Every structure is written in structure tokens, then in C-alpha cells.
């Protein structure tokens, strides 16, 4: 899933500015609900904070809230057309995809991002998420026994650990596991160390965003 975190309130207030009276905050019920950044709970608590702030400033601001199932699907955006229309400004608590999808669906409305979209990750503890994938477009997990060096090694090394790996820790951050230590341990466990001996050529980054923004077409479902 996509992992995101809420921008700090000061930044959100500055971004919203002074030129509105009615604000709609739209949450998203999928990834960012799981990463506790933009679900119904976060939408409501941010609305409370903003109401308190604007009241303290003597500003007459009405704040409405709603959380759709997925902001990245037009079918769920159709449901909130009236709410969008009756507000001056929309603050989206979805990932960057949700924000842009709202803009695309309601092009006349100003939609602002309330979150920083961080990475593709998994929940690794209560209130903790860790990066596991960068969406490189050419999965190599088969070569590394299910641990991705592209996403999890600070240098994305494909041929072994750098010289800074010590005691299983990444040189960049001792709280991060060295991906190559994990790969090595898996290889030993599976008795497949010999599969790590061959040179791995540089990756083809054309299938990542280095080749330009990507569109994926499944011809079974999509007609030209």
C-alpha cells in the first residue's frame, strides 16, 4: 500500500490561506486509512483542530468532512459532487494520486494536498510503516529470495553489500536493517548462496519513471 503522513497543521493553514469561507476535507478509505494519515478519524480530528484555530482567529469558516472509499477511482468521486460544489476549497487527505484525481474530476475547484505521500510499504509495528518497494517496473525479488535491494538498500546495490554494512545495520541509519545482511541470511537458510555469485548487470530504468511517466494498458479490458 501507499504510506503517507499528514503535513503539519501550520503548513496546512498557510497553504489554505485566507481566501475562503467553506472548506471541504476529503479523506480516503484505503491505503492512507491504514497508515493512519487520511482516514475518517484523521479527517475529523484535523477538522476539529482547524475549527478551533479559525475560531481563535475570529474567522468565520465552515468545515465539512467526508471520506470516500478510494479517491483514485472516479466512481467514488461522483458521490461527493454536491459537497465539492458547495465549498470554496477542498483539502484532500489522500495520497498524491487521490489529490490529482479529484483535480481531474472537478477541474474548476482548487484541491490542496493535506498529506505527504511517502512510499510503498507495509505495517511493521503498531504505528510504524517501512518501505518495501519502489515500483521499479521490473521485479527482481526472485533473484534476492524475496528481499528487495532496490527498495531496501540505501544505495540500491544489486551485487552485494557496500563496505559500510556492519553488525547487520545500514550505514545510513543503524535502525534500518542492511538489506544485504537479510538477503545473505535468507540465502544461507535456503542453502542458495551460490545463486548470488553471478554478476547482476545494471538495471533497466526505462521501465521505471526514468523512461517518462508511465501508463499501463491491459488490452483484454482496454480498447484503443
Amino acid at each position, binding site marked *: 500500500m501507499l504510506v503517507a503522513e499528514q503535513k503539519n497543521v501550520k503548513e496546512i493553514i498557510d497553504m489554505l490561506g485566507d481566501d475562503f469561507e467553506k472548506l471541504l476535507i476529503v479523506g480516503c478509505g484505503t491505503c492512507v486509512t491504514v497508515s493512519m494519515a487520511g482516514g475518517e478519524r484523521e479527517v475529523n480530528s484535523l477538522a476539529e483542530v482547524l475549527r478551533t484555530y479559525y475560531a481563535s482567529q475570529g474567522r468565520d469558516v465552515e468545515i465539512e468532512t467526508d471520506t470516500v472509499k478510494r479517491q483514485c477511482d472516479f466512481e467514488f468521486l461522483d458521490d461527493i459532487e454536491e459537497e465539492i460544489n458547495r465549498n470554496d476549497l477542498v483539502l484532500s487527505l489522500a495520497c498524491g494520486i487521490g489529490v490529482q484525481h479529484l483535480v481531474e474530476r472537478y477541474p474548476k475547484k482548487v484541491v490542496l494536498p493535506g498529506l505527504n505521500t511517502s512510499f510503498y510499504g507495509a505495517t511493521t509495528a503498531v504505528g510504524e510503516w517501512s518501505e518495501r518497494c519502489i515500483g521499479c517496473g521490473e521485479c527482481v525479488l526472485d533473484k534476492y529470495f524475496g528481499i528487495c535491494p532496490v527498495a531496501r538498500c540505501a*544505495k540500491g*546495490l544489486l551485487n*552485494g*553489500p557496500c*563496505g559500510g554494512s556492519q553488525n547487520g545495520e545500514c550505514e545510513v541509519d543503524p535502525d534500518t536493517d542492511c538489506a*544485504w545482511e537479510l538477503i545473505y541470511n535468507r540465502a544461507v537458510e535456503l542453502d542458495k548462496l551460490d545463486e548470488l555469485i553471478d*554478476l547482476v*548487470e*545494471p538495471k533497466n530504468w526505462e521501465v521505471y519513471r526514468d523512461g517518462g511517466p508511465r501508463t499501463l494498458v491491459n488490452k483484454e479490458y482496454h480498447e484503443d
Partner: protein
Amino acid sequence: MAKKYSKVKNMLDAGHFVVCSEMGPPIGADPDFIREKANYLKGYVDGVNVTDNQTAIVRMSSIAAAKIAMEEGLEMIIQITGRDRNRIGLQSDILGASALGLRNVLLLTGDHQTFGKDPGAKNVFEMGSVQLIKAVNDMVEDGILINGDEMKVPPKMFIGAAANPFADPFEMQMIKMQKKVKSGVEFFQTQAIYNMEKFEYWMEEVRKRGMHEEVDILAGILPTRSAKALRMMKKYVAGMDVPDHVIKRMDQAEDKEKEGVKMAVETIEKVREIEGVRGVHLMPVAWEEITPEVVKEASLYPRPEVE
């Protein structure tokens, strides 16, 4: 293929115990800074590394600095890391360096940019050290670029890399070193040695795999005059192994500069006895001017003359 063009290579081939050292370019554009450093090293070392924005701090480019020092009469080893350039920039710089007459290169993955003063910089790391070695070897030996283009005039480079006897996981590091050898590396410079026992064990493992016969290994020596610096290295420098007895010895020394030289000389004498060690690489940090004295004290002066 005989590489008559690299003096370092010729020294090694002639069986001499090679002495390399290192210089960091300035934060600034002053060529005299390089010339001064070059002049006190002249005659004392066989090759001098120029670091490539080491610890991810912006400095004069290693190729430009190496060219300036070469004009002062030194044999230079340019360091090139994959941190800041993709395959296009890296290959282009190899061609440029060779065209300028630079004949030795040390290919590294590079320190992560979060260690430096520009932690917000975008990193590249498209080519790790192993891939870089393969690419440069293909350029030099076969005259082809990664994209398959053939060159009428290929670059001439003696290809080196780093090896860290103190990094983990040990066996995986060995596998990576073997990959470097298979990819065409010709010499290694090791991480600075303070833990001699570990280094001896590492060399034993290197010999078991026959790597000492395929490549030249230069042992890393880091002369220092400060117990504080040793503590800092132990604590903060990734991949360094500084045993407590080394720190204690420096702590108790009355004349720390003299002790620093003595410790470096002792390390040189010890590694010289180890089968497969073909030379030393001196890398005093913020004490580069001590290099000539260490070379003299280690009875490695004068340097033999080789074409």
C-alpha cells in the same frame, strides 16, 4: 594485456612493494592547493589517489585535481564513485580522464549523500562498484560502451577497487570481492587496518580463493596522531574496526605524532610479511604532510625507478 602506460601497474609487475597515498581536493577552485600537496609527495609515493567528493562533500572534481597534480610529476589514481553520475556521466568521465592522460582509476560505489553537507541531494547509485568495474573493463579491454557502441580510441586505465576486510556479512563481502575480480579489477586498496588479527584472517580467506594471485592487494594504512580521531572512527565511520588497545596506546603516548608514525610503520612492517599483500595505501586524514616521514621510517625510501 601488458599495461605499459600505468606506472603503478609497472611497479607491481616489476615485483616492487608499492606505496600509494591519497589527497583530498580543496573546497574551492585553487589549483595551488593541489600543487603544494603534490610537491611534498613527489618522490615518496608511486601513485596518489584523488578522492571523488569524499564523505559526500562538494570539492574540486577528482579528474581536474588529478590532472593538476599529474602536471607536477605525480602518477595519479582518480577515484570515481557511482553516487552522483549515471552510466552516461560515468563513461563520459572515464573517456575524458583518459584523454587527459590519467591512467589509473579506483572505482567505488560511494559514500551515501546523507553523510555529507547536502543530505537533501538526489542520489544516483545507478552503477554499483561491481558494475562500474565491468563497464570500465569492457571499455578498456574491448573498446565498447555499455550501449554496445565501439570506440576507435578506447580509454587506457589500470582498474582498481576498494575492499573492506572489516565489513559484514563477511562471506557475502568475499563473494562481492570475487565478483569484482571476475569483472576485471586489477588492484585493490583496503579499508584502513587497525585490527591486524582480522586483516590476517581476511587475507587468509582471500588466498584460499586464489584472489591474491589474480589481483594486487594494497593494504590501507591510516596514520593518525589523535586518540580522539580513533574514537570518532570507531564510533562514526561505517566499516571501520578500531580495537580499544589501539586507542589506549595513543591515549597513553606522550608524543602523539611520533607514536602515530610508529604505529603506521609497525602496521606497514606487519602487512609486508603477509603473503599476497603487494603494497600499502597511505591515507592520513588531515595529516597528509606526514606521508614522506612514514615512507622513510618504513624504509621504503627512496622509491625504485620504473618506466
